[in-house]
């Protein structure tokens, strides 16, 4: 049986995380504002790519096919596979699936 502390970090581990965050915060002081924005934009793109790689794959599939888009699509498929294997995309996919199945966005066209 898995020890819960392996999944939910203990206080000691939280302390380590806080120290890392503090270290990152101290980096923030040294970064210029454009650099901070660039970090936010690119890091957000990486998080989105790992958490929902299918969005990029679908977007590339809609583009006109040529050597560049073909290579990009192949790379995106690789990311989809890696993300899926590591379970990174599972929370997003499960949440999206649950939302679509909820029936909340079923359109009622009024009087039959």
């Amino acid at each position, binding site marked *: 049986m898995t020890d819960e502390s392996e999944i939910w970090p203990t206080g000691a581990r939280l302390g380590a995380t806080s120290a890392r965050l503090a270290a*990152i915060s101290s980096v923030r002081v040294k970064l210029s504002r454009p650099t901070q924005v660039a970090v936010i934009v690119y890091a957000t793109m990486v998080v989105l790519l790992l958490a929902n790689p299918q969005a990029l794959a679908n977007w590339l599939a809609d583009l006109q096919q040529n050597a560049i888009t073909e290579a990009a699509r192949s790379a995106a498929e690789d990311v989809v596979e890696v993300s899926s294997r590591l379970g990174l995309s599972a929370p*997003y996919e499960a949440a999206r699936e649950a939302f679509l199945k909820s029936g909340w966005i079923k359109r009622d*066209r009024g009087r039959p």
Partner: protein
Amino acid sequence: MLFPTIDFLLFFAVVFPITWSLNDKNTLKKAFLVLVSYAFYASWNWRFAFLLLFSSTGNYLACRLLSATTSPSRRRLVTFVAVALNLLALAYFKYFDFLAAELMNFAGFFGLDLEINAPEVPLPVAISFLTFHGLSYIFDVSRKKVEASKSLLDVVLYMAFFPHLVAGPIVRAADFLGQLSKKSDPKHIDIAGSFSLILGGLVKKVVIASHIATLFVDPVFVNPSDFGRLDLILAAYGYAIVIYCDFSAYTDIAIGVANLLGYQFPQNFNQPYRATSLRDFWRRWHMSLSSWLRDYLYIPMGGDRGGRWATYRNLMVTMLLGGLWHGAGFQFIIWGGLHGFWLALERFLKETFGFDSSKGALGVRVLGWFVTFQVVCAAWIFFRSPSSSAALEYFGWIIRDSGAPSTATPFVIALMLLGFATQLTRPERYETLVRWYADASLAMKVAVPSLTILCIGILGPKGVAPFIYFQF
């Protein structure tokens, strides 16, 4: 290229670092921004990019001519010709079909068989915003509020800068050209404020506006006879939320994106549905348009300087033209007329009885808020309907009531309440959130947009509809 798409995210991810890396070479930076702005505009139709270039160059030359002319009569002539050329382009692309159809109808009324073959010209995206920016520059130079720019590049960038190009906010030449004369100061980047505007805009557009529109408002307005009175009234309120969340989302994102690139745009919305009078509403709704109409139309017509009835007339004419600017159709003219009439009525009540619903006891202000919101929503029915007759039929169906049960789902009602809550939340609460984000660590600054965009992806519809104001 729409803001809430992967296309735009990639576009911005390329444009942002290059823009700042060129900051010390201001001319090169501006040339780069012109290039990417034209690419942005050409993503709809590359032919329209020539119209944009032609308009920018024409306005640049007209203003150079104005600055070289000292004779008042010649200045007036140059101003008149430049304004007329801007308006002619707008009339040709936007109103030709409407005017031709109305002329043929008018001739038919007198038994004349008039045939006007309208050329099938596609409406250039954002032609009205383009015209507003051109006219703003001409008027400001003509009134010597701003010097005519010697740099064609500056004028081309002023007209084409991609964040405001398609749907505003309407940026005054006097406010923007000065920002182009020197390199941007990185300290002016408000990271927390900009990301809050961008993320808030994405939530308003993709989650709130898109769902309310597709699940409820659009079906009701397409076939009002299929729905009962409650749905028809709810759809009018729903559209009020949709158009606010849609349009304010675009301008919020535009303001945020421009700020990240080092440029400041004016605020365009300030919780308009909190307004306690229609006058108050127009100080909060599409503020860059209302101040434009005030400064370039209402005041030059005489404003409130010509006596009571002249003021009412000026208000009415300003709002009628404001309505016509939104679209070629009588429904927009009636929408503007309703606003003009109510503004004149408020002024009449204030001047005659001293009654002002924006001031006074709490009860008076609550009543003022309630009445103003109903007037605004009733006028929105004309704005949303495909024609004036369809809008009148819509009102007819509300009065007759088909008896059909309500079809608004709890999800739609919840989104409408959420959209309305954006109006009632005190501004200090937003400021607290922005301050918290400003003080957060860099890791948290990444986590917030990442989680927000993922949540938008989970809760959003499939695909994103264009912004409503793109058609204007």
